[in-house]
């Protein structure tokens, strides 16, 4: 009985954190990349990749607490990079629309008959 109890509780002594799930950070980096963050927010995306690599190294060294923290940070950086990319895309669309309106106005003004004096 005592042996059974000891065996049951043996795993409890100095229990370690499980390896972190890195998939969310990995997905966030991929999505940021696809959204154009490498052009719109290259530094932020680079930070995300660097932290993710550090997280992977920490996980390999079984420093799971550090790995989890770094993966979390990498995910935040990637999401921020994606947000910046989306914002840049929206701004570019606004600028394009403004330019189209400007060109249209010019066309309208050119095609108006000039009112000559009589």
């Amino acid at each position, binding site marked *: 009985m005592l042996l059974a109890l000891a065996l049951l509780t043996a795993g409890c002594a100095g229990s370690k954190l499980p390896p972190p799930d890195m998939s969310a950070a990995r997905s966030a980096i991929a999505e940021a990349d696809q959204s154009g963050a490498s052009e719109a927010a290259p530094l932020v995306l680079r930070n995300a990749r660097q932290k993710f690599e550090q997280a992977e190294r920490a996980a390999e060294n079984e420093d799971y607490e550090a790995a989890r923290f770094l993966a*979390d*940070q990498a*995910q*935040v*950086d990637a*999401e*921020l990079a994606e*947000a910046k990319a989306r914002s840049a895309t929206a701004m570019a669309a606004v600028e394009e629309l403004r330019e189209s309106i400007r060109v249209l106005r010019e066309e309208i003004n050119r095609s108006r008959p000039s009112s000559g004096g009589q």
Partner: protein
Amino acid sequence: MQEHTLSVYRTARYLTLGDPSGPVEEVWMACHGYGQLAPYFLRHFRAIEAPHRMVVAPEGLSRFYLENHQRVGASWMTREARLDEIDDYVRFLDTVYTDVLTQTRRSRVRLIAFGFSQGGATVARWLARSPALGTPPADRLVLWGSVLPHDLDLDEHADWLRCVGLTLVVGDRDAYATPERIAEQEEQLREAAIPFEVVRFDGEHRLDTEVLRDLAR
């Protein structure tokens, strides 16, 4: 030597969770602590994401390097030119809040003013000084790991403090919002007849996801 001051145009940022085009009924203005940045602070609030809720995390106007240039953090103010810095961030928070309301196309939402550590004093001063907020200035004030700033006269501001729904949240091993500081704050609030609640959790000077979820219910 003469000192001169002038106002300048600068770029500030804030980050958000939530869809402003959705059925937003509640806005959390969440101010981070000293040395934090808004994106990393905001991630804690993913735990309370909901269709009816937006969480807004403005970033302190002064950024600086930390840990031998390995990290960047932000601050709301220092004791240097403190009154000007307070005026600046009150204006900034008013602008952010107005911007958010514009995006949600609502003139009125339930406002939860949330501050962690230095952010607690920041939101409290914002509520006390803002010309843009109504009466009371918010529906709830949450000070996490923080107390009301010493320059906030409780008697002078008792009217809105009594209406705002004040919650102090503190970890039992918080090295900044120590038991002594919290006890002192509790006594001051009782003397001013300002209702409040204190939520304690097992932890240090940090946010706690489960407590945050409970607050948001």
